[in-house]
């Protein structure tokens, strides 16, 4: 599986330029799409799942032009949109069955088995006869994941996958995706939550104002920030002072003081320790330094 995006632009009828000259190559495995709100993530994903047209450029999926082979491509797709809360009056299993039938491969028996298996996999088997719109937020999310997976897609596009999931569910979800990424499947995750990507994706892109600001492995991004993340212990007064001076990434109260992490070339005093950066640090650093977007 290989998705190639060349010089992709999307301009909405109201003149808003959502994507501008995006070039990306996405191979099998998990791919993270990171970026602040309005960076163009949703537009890009909706274009990739054939819900929207683009203005110019070219997208091929396994060499198939997305514009010319929509039907073929749709057979490869699984999609979970960002908001997935409003259902028509169908039972949980019916909803999944409806999706399974429309993806259109299985015979009744196989399909019913697949539906049951999937329900168990996402932990909804107990509530299979409950109306989908009566499910809790997390359950709805899981049902969304289930319907995206039921078609055994080759290309899975997931918008904000873990919103509304509790930590346990989140882990389960990551595991499902990890299993899947072992096969020849492209999984595109779009998220604000950097942690989702760092723990699963081998590749990622950072979108900013419709353009690709970074494209590569998360490690490459992290490498940039190496030596620039400091951990300090400060009191209230010092905290106020440092907040003005450096971008503060995390703040933890500790014994009447604050344990904070800041991004800086060098920090003198305060018992500052240079710590190992993670993707979150890298993201903020990148935004601050490369794109001049202040953290606060």
């Amino acid at each position: 599986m290989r998705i190639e995006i060349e010089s992709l632009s999307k301009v909405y009828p109201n003149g808003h330029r959502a994507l501008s000259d995006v070039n990306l190559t996405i191979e099998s495995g998990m791919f993270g799409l990171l970026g602040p709100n309005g960076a163009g993530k949703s537009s890009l994903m909706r274009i990739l799942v054939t819900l929207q047209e683009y203005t110019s450029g070219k997208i091929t999926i396994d060499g198939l032009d997305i514009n010319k082979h929509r039907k073929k491509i749709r057979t490869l797709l699984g999609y979970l949109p960002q908001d997935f809360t409003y259902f028509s009056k169908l039972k949980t299993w019916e909803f999944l069955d409806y999706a399974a039938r429309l993806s259109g491969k299985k015979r009744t028996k196989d399909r019913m088995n697949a539906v049951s298996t999937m329900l168990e996999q996402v932990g909804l088997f107990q509530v299979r006869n409950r109306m989908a719109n009566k499910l809790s937020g997390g359950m709805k999310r899981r049902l969304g994941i289930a319907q995206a997976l039921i078609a055994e897609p080759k290309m899975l596009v997931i918008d904000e996958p873990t919103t509304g999931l509790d930590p346990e569910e989140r882990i389960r979800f990551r595991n499902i995706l990890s299993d899947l990424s072992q096969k020849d499947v492209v999984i595109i995750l779009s998220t604000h939550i950097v942690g989702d990507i760092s723990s699963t994706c081998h590749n990622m892109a950072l979108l900013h104002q419709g353009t690709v600001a970074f494209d590569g492995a998360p490690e490459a991004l992290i490498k940039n920030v190496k030596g620039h993340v400091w951990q300090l212990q400060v009191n209230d007064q010092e905290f106020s002072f440092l907040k003005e001076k450096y971008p503060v990434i995390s703040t933890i109260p500790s014994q009447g003081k604050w344990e904070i992490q800041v991004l800086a070339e060098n920090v003198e005093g305060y018992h500052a320790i240079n710590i190992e950066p993670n993707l979150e640090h890298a993201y903020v650093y990148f935004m601050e330094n490369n794109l001049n977007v202040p953290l606060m």
Partner: protein
Amino acid sequence: MISLKNIAVIARYESKVLWRNWFFRIFALAIITILVFFNIGVFSPVGNNRWFHRAISSGIPYANMVFLNLVQVAVLIFLASGIIKNNKKLDTNEVFYVRPLSNADLVLGKALALLILFFRLNLVILVIALIVNVTATDTNINFQAYIYYPLLISFPNIIFTTSLSFLLVSVLRNQAIGIIFLLGLVGVILIYFQGNYYFLPDYIAFKLPLYASDIAGFSNLNQLVLHRTIYLCLAGAFFLATISFFPRLPQRKVNRLASAILTILFLLGTTGLVWVYLEKEINDKALRKTMIALNGEMAETPNIDITSCYLDLNHSENTISCGARMIVQNNQVHQLKKLFVTLNPELSVNKLIFEGSALNFTRKSHLILFETPVPILPGEKKSLEIQYEGGINEAVCYLDIHGDRYEKPRATFMYNIDKRFVFLEPDYVLLTKDALWYPQAWVGYNKTSPGTGNHNFIDFRLKVNTRENLTAISQGKLMNEAPGVYAFSPEVPLPQISLIIGDYGQKSITVDSTDFNLFFHEKNDYFSEYFDQLQDTLATLVRDLRNGYEQDQNMKYNFSRFQLVEAPVQFYAFTNLYENHQAYIQPETVLLPEKGGEIWELDFKSQFKAMNHQTRINNHVMDGKDKQANIFKNFVKSVLTKQQNSWQFSWRGGNNLEGANYAVFPNLYWYQTGINSKKWPLLNKNLADYLNQEAQVDDNMSRNWRGISFTEDCNSLMREKNLEDILSQEESFDKVSGIIKLKGDYLLKHLELQIGKEAFKSFLYQMIAEHAHQTLSYDDFRTAVLRRFQFDIEPIIDQVYSQVEQPAFIISDISDYQVRDGDRNRFQVVFRVENVEDVDGMIKVQFHYNRQSAAFAPPDINDEASVSFIPKGQKKAIRFLLDERPDRIMINTLISRNIPSVINLPLGQFEMNQKQQPLSGEIILLNNEEAAITEIIVDNEDPGFTTFTPIREPYLRKMILKRNNENSPQKYHGEWRSSASHWRLTTGAAYYGKYVRSAHFTRSGKGEKIATWQPEIKESAYYDVYVHLTGGNSNNAFFPNRRKQQIVNYNYYVFHDDGEDEITIDINRAERGWNFLGSFYFSQGTGKVILDNKSENRSVFADAVKWVKQ
């Protein structure tokens, strides 16, 4: 592009979702409940409603489908627009949008979901209907109807409404606007379009004539199917357009293009179908126009008469082929060379043989024009043979009828029943002379001389060859030569012949060598069980009824057979203005509606029920046989002989001239003889009406609704236009035929007066007897009258038919008392009448006796009316001496300016008057009894009368009132209908007035509305003041005593020299006529009386005030 599997999946789940929709569930439950009650109430033995509603097997499924369809269309609009709208919130849609489906799959799947849902609902309703149908034991079950009604009514409606909703919501991208538009469209179709434009806009099939007969099935099935196909095709276009507009990227770009192209193709297809649909209608309309024009051209062309006509007819499928061998005669004074006959334009003529040799002919629409090699001399007879074949175009019938009367189906209950005049189908045929199925030698309706209908007696023979299992019915002696081969030889010449072929059963009885035959459709014998005990008495019963009728009519039924034939429910006949019967009556034959139709006397179940009820109330003992005989007699006398009024009640009063009339009278006159006159085309009809002793229905309600009676309306039109204009211009049918009746009545009354009633009548009966089975020319008739009575009828005929001016009668001083006449008391009624106009006139006086049940019942036909001639300007006192005490007098002013034209008043106490001599007859009064100058009367239409209404009405109310009343040219208003928010004018016999008796009335209130009478006092003096009242609340003519007990006060204010006096009168205890208010002094030029609208009654009436100088 389309995957049936995907569509099925979508339909399955979407219909599941729809079914879980509470809106739909509540609707479904409601409609099912309503229809269960409706079915039980109307069709089941529990409800036992009118027979006609369930008589024909298509009725129950049809009514259910129409009912359901009307309601489901609204629900469908909501559901369809909801299912297709692109709900931004419904993000679960999008996960399906990324599935490998085409947009067509999505749209069609959703449409199919709706179809499945409503199909189930329809199925439930049909099952309910079927169950009720099974329980309604006297109704046949027509299983096919349960298939074709949903297919014709519901199915196209569901599909089309869905497609239209889909398209609108997709294009507008707004569900609310879409719904409002769609509901508006439905409203417009139901209320505004209805059946207009040949039903084309009526996609809901609300007005489409879909009622099917058990005898002849659907009428015009082709057109009906075409109509529904148009909407299916249009639905196809709309679905395809919806697919193009669907807010999702198509699978392939070419898909969108393909659906756009297909949309256009479907639209073209629809246009084509519409064209085919309308083509027939438009062609028919054009044909009718052409025929009227051609008739006009030929109307004055002299032509031969056909004296004998032998028809040899083959019926097969939808066609006939026929050979007509005729003897034609030149009855003109000149020789004839250019001849014509008429024949239905769809019948093509193969051969025309004149005197043994084929002639060339030209065909112009229905005309066959040809020229003989040698002229036919006056009186000469020649042979003519025409061979023709083809179908029958129904559009040739009733060229004089147009507009809604002709085009709109008959709507009764929930049924729309097509009006059919001809049937020519593989298993059913009904042909009357109107169909032009055999050659006729005269033209029909035209505008040059609308009344040129020929009335000519022909020696007919008819041989029919049809399918073996079918029965043919016509006139004359029947020889059934072989199965399917029938030969009819009428014993006497007839003016017309008819042919009916169908699957008929027969019941016959021969009484006094006349055959009485009843032909009914094989499955439609619903009546036998009710008359099972009559077998041995039927002959006597029939004999008595016949003799009674002949005696009442003073004429003989001269045919050898009398047949009642059940005709399909759609068979319809209009009343021809120049004939006094409808096509339901053929020679020897009455075509009764299928299963008795709406004739209440043929609803035997109800008849027996009513009779049992009646006997119980009256404590009568009647055995089954008597009951059966009574029901039978009741039917014959109410429907066939009209010796008694039908029980059916007509709200429009006695002028329901459009209604079906199954009276056999034409067989006594029209089909036996007649007076032919080109000059007086109405004379024959008027004579027939005069001779017809039918029970008359009185016109009672019109005044209460409209302020004046139907007759007064007709009189008013006759003052505006002469008869010729009324006939040729397009006035309402009711009025024109009412006027013809009034003119005829007037003419014959006039002749009666001149010649003597008895003498005139017996002369007419003799003429008829002498001219049996032939016509008499007007000139011969005139000469005969002249010879017999030395009296020329022509000036009177001319005068009556052409006169526009009308007399006006002031009728006054009606008094009644008892007088001694020898050794017994008798009852004397005297009144004065003055004809104040410049033309002579007549009045007809009748009395009503208490022996009749209801006060508003028309006078007994046995109580003779007396007619008085009142020449112009003359004043007469008319006196009656009666043996029996009457309770009402009815003075009918016939054609006059009088309003009311019939003065119908209760009579008084008949107190003994010893001084009066018992006198009867008329005396001419000299005109010197001028009213004393000392008397000043201000009537409500005089200039001295004014009304005042404070206008404080809401704007909307005013607008509605304005629309309803003020812009209408109507002068008088009925108390029952008009909004009396301000003073309105109405009429009535009890009001004061010279020849227009009127009063103002308004709704009662707090006294804010007033009426003022202002006299012209010329001399200062004491005056007695009187007000004119109807007495005893007789505004309610039907229940004069109902409110006698109650006090109803009117407040009068008299303004005089010494100030103002308020005088209250209890109108329930007031005298009819002048009531004294008091004596007051009035100076010259002063004084007035005011009445306010404060009263216990619903309305207050202001009539007249009188000042009498002391």
